[in-house]
C-alpha cells in the first residue's frame, strides 16, 4: 500500500498553501513518513544515509588524525595562519542564519510563507552551527581543553581577555547554538504531542511521549506558549544579527588590509542570509519532491526565498564594491595593494572572478519570475551561490593574509588533503544529522500549518471570493 493515504493529487500552486487542506490531511501527509516502521523507510533515504555516513567516517578519521598528530596537518602557517578552518567555520555558521531568520524575523513580520519551511530550516540552523562550532574547537590545537575559553574560576587563576573579538565569538556562538536549540524544541513540543497521539509502536509512544513533556494543548498553556514563542522570536532576531556581526568583527577590528573595514558587519550578515537561503533551497527542493510536499512548500515559498536571495546577494555585491572603493579612497598603500592583489594578483585572481561569477552573475536570472518558479534552475543557482560564498571567505581570509605589509613576510597558502577531508567530512556530519531529523521528526510544523490552513480557509483568497459572490447574490450586505 502507498505510504501516505488521503493525499490530494499534487498540484503546483502559487499560494502559501494549496486550497482545501484540513488538519487531518496535514497530519497524515507530514507525520506518516515519520511514523512508518523501519522496513518502510524509503530507498532514497537509505542511499543518502549511506553517503553521508561514509563522509562522516572521513570526518571522524580526520579528527582522530588531527588530535593525534596536531594542527600541522593543515596547510596554514605564517603568514596565512587562518585558512580553511576559519573559512569553513564562517561558511557553515552563515548558512545557519537563514533558518533563524525564517523562523524569527518572518514570524515577527507576520509572513505566512514562513510556516511550512521554518521547521526544517531551524534544523538546518542547528546542524550547521554544530558543523561550524567544531572548527574553532578543532583548530585551537588542544580541543580537549576548549573549556578554557569560558570564564570560570580555575586553578590557573586566569580569565579570558574580554577585549578580544575571539572571546566575543565564544559567547556569541554558544548563545546562538543554545538559543536556537531551545527555540526549535519549544516549537516542536505541540508537534511531538501530535506524534505521541498517533504513534503506533511502543518505541514511538515512549520517544514522542517523553519528548512532548505531557503537552495537552490547554488554552492557558497555549496562551503562555504563544507569548514565549513570540519572545523567543523577538530575542532571536537581534541575536542572529549580532552573531555574524561579531564574526565580522573578528576581521574588522584587526589591522590586516582587507579586513579593517567598517562595512564588514552588515555585509557579513547579508552574506550569511544569502548563503543560508541558498542552502534552504538546496534542501527544500529535493525535500518537497521526496515527501510529496509540493502543496505545502509551494512555488510561492521558492519564489520568495529566491527574491530574498537576490536582494541579499546584491547587498553582498555592494559590499565588494565598497571594499574596493575604500581601498582607493583611504589612500593607504597597503589597502590599495590589497585591492589590486585581490582582483588582479597572480596567485588568486581566479578566486575573485569566480566569486563575482557566482555571487553577481549567477543570481541575475532571479529577476525573472519564471526562473524563480523553476525548481531545477533555483537548485542550480543555489549551488553557485554556495560555492560563491565559500570563495568570498577564501578571498577575504587567505588572499588578504598572503600579502599584507612587508614583502619579505609574504607567503602563499595551499590546502592539504586533511584540510579538504575535514571540509568534505563536515557535509557528512550535516547530512547524517539532517537525514535522521527527516526520519524521526516532522519536517513541517503541523500545528502551525493547521492554523494557517484554518486561516486560509476563512480569510484566504477563496473566502473573499465566496463572500464576494454572496454579496452579488444579495445574501451579504457590505
Amino acid at each position, binding site marked *: 500500500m502507498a505510504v501516505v493515504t488521503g493525499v490530494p493529487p499534487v498540484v503546483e500552486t502559487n499560494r502559501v498553501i494549496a486550497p482545501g487542506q484540513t488538519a487531518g490531511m496535514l497530519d497524515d501527509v507530514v507525520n506518516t513518513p515519520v511514523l512508518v516502521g523501519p522496513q518502510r523507510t524509503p530507498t532514497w533515504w537509505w542511499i543518502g544515509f549511506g553517503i553521508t555516513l561514509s563522509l562522516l567516517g572521513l570526518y571522524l578519521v580526520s579528527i582522530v588524525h588531527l588530535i593525534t598528530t596536531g594542527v600541522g596537518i593543515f596547510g596554514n602557517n605564517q603568514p596565512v595562519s587562518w585558512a580553511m578552518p576559519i573559512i569553513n567555520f564562517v561558511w557553515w555558521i552563515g548558512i545557519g542564519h537563514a533558518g533563524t531568520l525564517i523562523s524569527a524575523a518572518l514570524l515577527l513580520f507576520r509572513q505566512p510563507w514562513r510556516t511550512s519551511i521554518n521547521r526544517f530550516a531551524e534544523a538546518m540552523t542547528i546542524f550547521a552551527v554544530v558543523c561550524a562550532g567544531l572548527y574553532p574547537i578543532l583548530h585551537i590545537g588542544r580541543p580537549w581543553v576548549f573549556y578554557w575559553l569560558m570564564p570560570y574560576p580555575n586553578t590557573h587563576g586566569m580569565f579570558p581577555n574580554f577585549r578580544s573579538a575571539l572571546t566575543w565569538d565564544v559567547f556569541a556562538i554558544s548563545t546562538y547554538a543554545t538559543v536556537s536549540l531551545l527555540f526549535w524544541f519549544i516549537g516542536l513540543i505541540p508537534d511531538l504531542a*501530535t506524534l505521541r497521539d498517533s504513534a503506533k509502536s511502543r518505541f514511538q509512544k515512549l520517544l514522542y511521549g517523553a519528548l512532548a513533556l505531557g503537552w495537552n494543548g490547554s488554552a*492557558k498553556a497555549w*496562551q503562555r506558549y504563544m*507569548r514565549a514563542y513570540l519572545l523567543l522570536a523577538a530575542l532571536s532576531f537581534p541575536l542572529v544579527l549580532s552573531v555574524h556581526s561579531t564574526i565580522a568583527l573578528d576581521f574588522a577590528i584587526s589591522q590586516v588590509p582587507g579586513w579593517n573595514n567598517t562595512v564588514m558587519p552588515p555585509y557579513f550578515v547579508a552574506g550569511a542570509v544569502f548563503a543560508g537561503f541558498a542552502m534552504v533551497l538546496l534542501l527544500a527542493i529535493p525535500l518537497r519532491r521526496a515527501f510529496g510536499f509540493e502543496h505545502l512548500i509551494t512555488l510561492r515559498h521558492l519564489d520568495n526565498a529566491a527574491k530574498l536571495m537576490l536582494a541579499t546577494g546584491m547587498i553582498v555585491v555592494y559590499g565588494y564594491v565598497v571594499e574596493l572603493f575604500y581601498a582607493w579612497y583611504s589612500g593607504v598603500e597597503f589597502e590599495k595593494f590589497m585591492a589590486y592583489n585581490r582582483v588582479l594578483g597572480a596567485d588568486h585572481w581566479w578566486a575573485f572572478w569566480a566569486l563575482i561569477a557566482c555571487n553577481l552573475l549567477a543570481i541575475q536570472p532571479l529577476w525573472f519570475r519564471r526562473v524563480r518558479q523553476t525548481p531545477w534552475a533555483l537548485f542550480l543557482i543555489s549551488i553557485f551561490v554556495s560555492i560563491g560564498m565559500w570563495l568570498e571567505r577564501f578571498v577575504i581570509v587567505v588572499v588578504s593574509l598572503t600579502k599584507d605589509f612587508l614583502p619579505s613576510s609574504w607567503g602563499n597558502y595551499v590546502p592539504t588533503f586533511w584540510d579538504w577531508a575535514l571540509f568534505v567530512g563536515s557535509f557528512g556530519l550535516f547530512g547524517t544529522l539532517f537525514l535522521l531529523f527527516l526520519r524521526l521528526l516532522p519536517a513541517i510544523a503541523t500545528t502551525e500549518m493547521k492554523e494557517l490552513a484554518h486561516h486560509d480557509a476563512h480569510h484566504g483568497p477563496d473566502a473573499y471570493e465566496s463572500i464576494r459572490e454572496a454579496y452579488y447574490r444579495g445574501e451579504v450586505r457590505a
Partner: protein
Amino acid sequence: MTTATAGAAGLYGVIAEYDTPEQVLVAAEAARKAGYTRMDAYTPHPVEGLDDALGLAPTNLGFVVLAMGLFGAAAGYFLQWYSATVFYPLNIGGRPLHDWPTYVVITFEVTVLLAAFTAGLVMLARNGLPRPYHPVFNTPGFERATRDGYYLCIEAADPRFDEGDVRGFLEGTAPVAVHRVAR
C-alpha cells in the same frame, strides 16, 4: 479508562468535543457568561480569542523575561568589569582597564541567553511541564485534541459544578460528544 465507574469523587470534570475552533470559542464564551470559572479548552493549535472567551488573565511572562534579561545584562557586564579591572587586569597597549565599548557584545549575548532561557523554561514550568499524567487524557478519543478535535472541559472543582447541569449546558452548545473525565 475508568470513565464508566468513576463516581462524583473520582470526577475531574465534564468535557465537550467540537469539530471547529469557532464552536469551542462560542461554547467557551457561553460557559463564562453562565458563570463557570474553573474550565479549560484543549485545542490542536492556538485559537485566537479563546483566552478572552474563557476569561483567562493575560500572562505576565513578558515581565519575568524582561527582569531576567536586565539581570543578564548586569551579570554579563559585571563579569567583564570584575575580571578585567579587579581579578585579572591585563595591560594591553596601555588602554584603560575599564573599556566599556569592548564589553558590549558579551553583555548583549548574556542578556539574550538569560532572557531566552527564561522565556522557554518559565513557560514550561508555569504550564506544569514536564508532566507525565493529566486527568484530561482520560477522555475517550482525546488523541483528537492534538489532531483536529476541539474540547471544552468544565472541571469538578468549579464552585457551581453539578454534573447534571454541566452536562445539560454542554449538550446545548452543539458538541459532537460529551464525556465524563475521570480523575
